[in-house]
């Protein structure tokens, strides 16, 4: 649905993004992740045809965004960082205007507006001036504006900023409900949000993609390395000496007490066998032995803030 090839954008001498390559399949929900100033918004603006890349191409539904911007824009709903709402318009009028602007057939407009209002729970405020709405409501009007034309592709730039926790949950539900019928790209720097809504994530830092994969693959990354969490009944003072016989153990860290240990292992499940056998045979009283996934936060910090702080 979205194809990005060698995308580069310079602002004067500053390179905002360089040589991005990725593609999004129809119906995917993709999280665009990165620290502030990484180039998330720039990439999204290019996809929406808002601005042109310095070099490289981007296409949506087979249409190049620079050659054929009108066709692309017909298929896209876009929520910028700041919701593009007119303060002096009523919510309902505003959505009607946007629908007309997005070339929704005249007969369908009232239906589509009603649908967008219902999906974003704006029913109570639809007769009010946008000027008088709170930030969270304005954000919701922004989202309603993006979905009012029922576009194939939804580009949401930090959709939950400024919302209270309940509204955040609602918006996540909304995004989930749009899954399948729409291709959604959403940017954020809030990690749980990605975990809650996206199937695939693209992590971008300083204008380049540092990782793109499904969430599960990313969380268990590090080339076959995994981490075991071990909890014992007895104190063990020197775990390193005990496990020295097993070559696949690459790292040992003590947990909250001498009863808890984190063991990093390299290789398959047979290593787990030998570790557990060792624990039982030595009579340490094995209570718990569980594989621990590196969570997304670790991956993110490692990838974006470099190896120097190793593991974040």
């Amino acid at each position, binding site marked *: 649905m979205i194809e990005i090839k060698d995308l580069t954008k310079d602002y004067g001498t500053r390179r905002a993004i360089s040589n991005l390559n990725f593609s999004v399949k129809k119906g995917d929900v993709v999280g665009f992740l990165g620290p502030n100033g990484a180039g998330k918004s720039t990439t999204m603006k290019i996809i929406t045809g*808002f601005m042109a890349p310095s070099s490289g191409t981007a296409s949506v539904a087979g249409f190049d965004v620079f050659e054929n911007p*009108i066709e692309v*824009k017909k298929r896209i709903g876009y929520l910028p960082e700041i919701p*593009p709402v007119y303060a002096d318009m009523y919510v309902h009028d505003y959505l009607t205007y*946007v629908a007309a*602007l997005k070339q929704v057939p005249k007969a369908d407009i009232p239906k589509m507006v009603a649908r967008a209002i219902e999906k974003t729970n704006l029913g109570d405020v639809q007769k009010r001036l946008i000027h008088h709405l709170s930030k969270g409501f304005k954000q919701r009007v922004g989202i309603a*504006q993006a979905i009012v034309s029922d576009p194939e592709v939804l580009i949401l730039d930090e959709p939950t900023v400024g919302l209270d926790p309940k509204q955040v949950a609602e918006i996540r539900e909304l995004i989930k409900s749009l899954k399948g019928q729409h291709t959604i790209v959403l940017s954020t720097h809030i990690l749980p949000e990605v975990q809650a809504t996206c199937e695939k994530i693209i992590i971008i830092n300083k204008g380049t993609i540092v990782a793109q994969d499904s969430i599960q693959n990313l969380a268990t990354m590090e080339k076959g390395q995994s981490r075991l969490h071990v909890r014992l009944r007895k104190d063990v003072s020197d775990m390193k000496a005990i496990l020295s016989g097993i070559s696949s153990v690459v790292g040992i860290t003590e947990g909250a007490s001498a009863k808890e240990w984190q063991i990093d292992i390299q290789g398959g499940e047979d290593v787990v066998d030998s570790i557990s056998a060792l624990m039982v045979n030595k009579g340490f009283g094995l209570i718990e032995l569980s594989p621990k996934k590196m969570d997304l936060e670790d991956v993110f910090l490692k990838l974006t803030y470099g190896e120097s702080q190793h593991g974040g």
Partner: protein
Amino acid sequence: MNGTVTILKKELKGFYFNPTFWIICFLLSLVFSWVFPIQLNLFAQLLTNYVMQQGVPQNQLNIHYGVFIRELSYLNLMLIFMVPALTMKLFSEEKKVRTFDLLLTSPVTSFEIVMGKYIAAMGAVMGLIFIGFLYPAATSVIAKINWLPLLIAFLGIFLVASVYTAMNLFCSSLTEQGIVAYVSSVVMNVSIWFIGIGSEVVDSEAGRKFFEHISFSSHLSAMGEGTIRTGAIIFFISLAGLFVFLTERVVESARWR
């Protein structure tokens, strides 16, 4: 052209459902209600005792010259300051509150955006000119007036206003600050009247002709007298077209800058 109609409707509503526009209309009619009767009264006095006065130009005895053309020049003066007030927000405000993003990511071309806004602004300006037209029209109750020269004179002021609107729309597209758009618009509207002065300082015949051709006052005064000059009409329309085109370029430039 669907996009133009959508934007036109929205902006026109923005003008006519907005108190600012009505305040401007009120101020305009306030000025005219003060000046026009005085002008008319002076004209009536002149008519009753012109025999006793020496050296009164013949054309001043005609109500068109004596009253209406003067009123038109006041209207022109008012438009110089009021058109910028109407147009200053059209682009600058959109840029400032970032609703411009919405327009630029909607399936409308830059030309449609600019035309929608331009025609809407002209719709508002036409309202102002209509207020100006009401005064001579009301005079027809107490005096016999020649309608055709009057209408042509108003066509002239309409054309000049369409140039103001295009220029001021252009100013608005250049900045995010409404006040900057307003001031630069007024400066442009005023200074355009001084271009014709060039004809008095150049020596060559060709240079003089050139300045006369691009002089606003000579074109407008011809139409004010009730003569349709295609040269004047083409001049005003092409000037408005030029600035609409420039505005379109500025809007389009947001895509590749």
